């Protein structure tokens, strides 16, 4: 008998980092599908290019750092997909590639790879691109003008404003119906427009216990309450517009960069919601979700320190 010696436990739930990442990717598929529905081949190209660039960058970095290959954990695929869904439809592809390389090389691997990065890689890249390519990152087109995947119609894309731009200007009359918000037939980043698809994905993650409800609910509820007191735009439109749902359900819930306890997650979500609304109402940009989450990422270690669980039996 050739026996193995190890410490208990000798059984495992058979879950893994890659299965959790895979679940998040599956949860993003409805939103990715909607982005293709509304923005056609542009969305397909953006998603493909971002994922490919992320995975290649990950592999090259690991070789350069003489560490084991980590593309099998699917975190690079997820970063690429999330970044793509956070980009405007007309962005030149070389910019998307630059952003993907930044996300993996600078925001993630420089710190040691998955588990060590202090900031969400996809959001870091988006912030980097917003500063570097301000014009291209803030030019939006109406979904109606895109060639569909089947190539049926071909109309030139029409530049339009996003709902948040109207909100910023206080021009509420220009806002489209609630139905358009839910279905995603509005201007915006390719993956953030369809609220229903995003919520289906979030529900899947909560049911599969990949994420908990704490961050999404506290994040969006804080925005809602803030908007309610501020008045003007109906609060529900604040929650449904821009990257709020995508950010609250898929970016703020990133394990590595968010607090570990339920209490900490609620504090984190409230912080994200408040900052988002502050930036939307008083900041220079119409949208604040990315910056809000990044700022709260920086606060995460502090939140963790003050929200430790109390051991069973401790008074």
């Amino acid at each position, binding site marked *: 008998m050739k026996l193995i010696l190890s410490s208990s436990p000798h059984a495992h739930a058979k879950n893994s980092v890659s299965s959790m990442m895979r679940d998040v990717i599956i949860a993003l598929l409805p939103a990715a599908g909607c982005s293709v529905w509304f923005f056609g081949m542009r969305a397909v190209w953006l998603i493909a290019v971002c994922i490919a660039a992320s995975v290649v960058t990950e592999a090259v970095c690991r070789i350069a750092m003489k560490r084991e290959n980590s593309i099998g954990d699917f975190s690079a695929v997820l970063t690429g997909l999330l970044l793509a869904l956070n980009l405007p439809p007309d962005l030149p592809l070389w910019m998307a590639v630059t952003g993907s390389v930044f996300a993996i090389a600078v925001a993630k691997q420089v710190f040691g790879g998955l588990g060590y990065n202090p900031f969400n890689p996809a959001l870091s890249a988006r912030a980097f691109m917003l500063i570097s390519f301000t014009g291209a990152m803030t030019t939006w087109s109406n979904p109606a003008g895109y060639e569909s995947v089947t190539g049926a119609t071909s109309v030139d894309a029409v530049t339009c404003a996003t709902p948040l731009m109207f909100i910023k200007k206080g021009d509420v009359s220009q806002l489209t119906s609630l139905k358009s918000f839910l279905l995603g037939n509005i201007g915006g980043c390719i993956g953030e427009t369809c609220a229903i698809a995003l919520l289906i994905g979030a529900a899947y993650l909560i049911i599969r216990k990949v994420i908990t409800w704490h961050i999404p609910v506290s994040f969006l509820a804080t925005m809602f309450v803030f908007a309610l007191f501020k008045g003007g735009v109906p609060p529900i439109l604040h929650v449904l517009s821009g990257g709020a749902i995508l950010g609250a359900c898929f970016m703020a819930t990133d394990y590595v960069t968010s607090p*570990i306890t339920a209490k900490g997650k609620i504090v984190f979500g409230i912080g994200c919601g408040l900052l988002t609304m502050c930036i939307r109402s008083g900041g220079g940009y119409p949208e604040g979700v990315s910056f809000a989450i990044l700022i709260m990422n920086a606060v995460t270690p502090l939140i963790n320190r003050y929200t430790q669980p109390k051991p069973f039996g401790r008074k």
Partner: protein
Amino acid sequence: MKTVKSSFKFHGGVHPEYHKDLARDKAIEAIPLPGTLVISMSQHLGAPAKCIVKPGDKVVKGQLIGEKGGFISANVHASACGTVKSIELKQGAAGGYANAVVLETEASDETAYMPPLDWKTATKEELLKRVEDAGICGMGGAGFPSSVKLNPPPDKHCEYLILNGAECEPYLTADFRMMLERADRVRTGVEIMRKVLNGPAVRIAVEANKPEAIAALEKAFADIEGNVEIVVLPVLYPQGSEKHQIYATVKRIVPEGGLPIEVGCVVENIGTVAAIADAVTLGKPLIERVTTVTGDGVNDPKNVLAPCGTRYEDMVAFAGGAKEDVRKVLSGGPMMGFNVADMSISTTKTTSGLTLLTEKSVFQYSSHPCINCGTCLRACPMSLNPAAISCAVESDDIAFAEKYGVMNCIECGACSFSCPAYRDVTQNCRRAKAAIRTRIAREKAATAAAAEKRS
């Protein structure tokens, strides 16, 4: 007597695959007397017993061969008739060394049991003395001497006697078979313990996946008087942990670092209760127990009644022998069992099972960095932060681990079991606990030395 459902859920817990079907339908079977028994002087928690026999001595089954070596200690008796061949330092399943009597057995019906007692007429002191003399300790795993448990300090009163029949460890079915086949002995044991503890209420805790055991207990306890309830616990690991069982049955929380008696509870394992009945009514010391020999690595999984000191190889041979591709031998089950590589280790009063796993049941892994997912926090029944503790231990920051309450860790393994990055979380907690215990012992020794210097 009534049966109720537990409505108090503790935090955390996990659902491992149970694999109890391997041995649950096998009736308890006595092993033929092995030619050699290796009887350890340290089968319980606390000081090892002092060996009082020497090589060449003839001993009779039930004869005292080791005297308890301190307040927290237990007597050891010969599990069979025979001749003492040698006294050797032997390694136990948990890795520690202790003196052991190597006994060459001979088939004989002779016994040296104590005189039977009638528990109805015997005094409390007599009963307590009998439990102590019989060397009875908790048979669920920790091996805490029962005479200490049954004799709480004068300022503490036992309000609830809780019988632990959860058997939440996967694979093991020894307690299940005891409840099914020896429910009457369990009842006698309960009545004796109730008398010793001045009539506390009795709660019998059984996991819901053992309906046959619940039915057998209901039958045996049907006409018992007083406040007795069978509490059906939800199937959740580690339901058998003392602190969690107390919470699940009577909703009391044992304070940090405290014992169950501080909240008026005494918890005793099912097998131990039956052993107490045997010690009183038959005068039989604790010299044998039921051990489940199971796992996909044995040919014929069984619940084996074997004398304490039976070598693992004899146990496995009785269960049809081991399969060729066995890769792990566990003393106990897969969640808390000790991994051993030596089949000449022998059973003790606390060996509830031997689990042999083949290649396909052994989970081999390499660890990834922690991704801070919080799965271990949600699994930890002690509400600790295993992720933070584990990372701190890996950078040798034991003080951080202590501050985060690592001494509360019950080493149930729920954190490592559920970790998607396959990190050795439980092992790191264990390392921190060992380092803290060593430091405390060193500080005590230093204080004692300083005091001596002054005088």
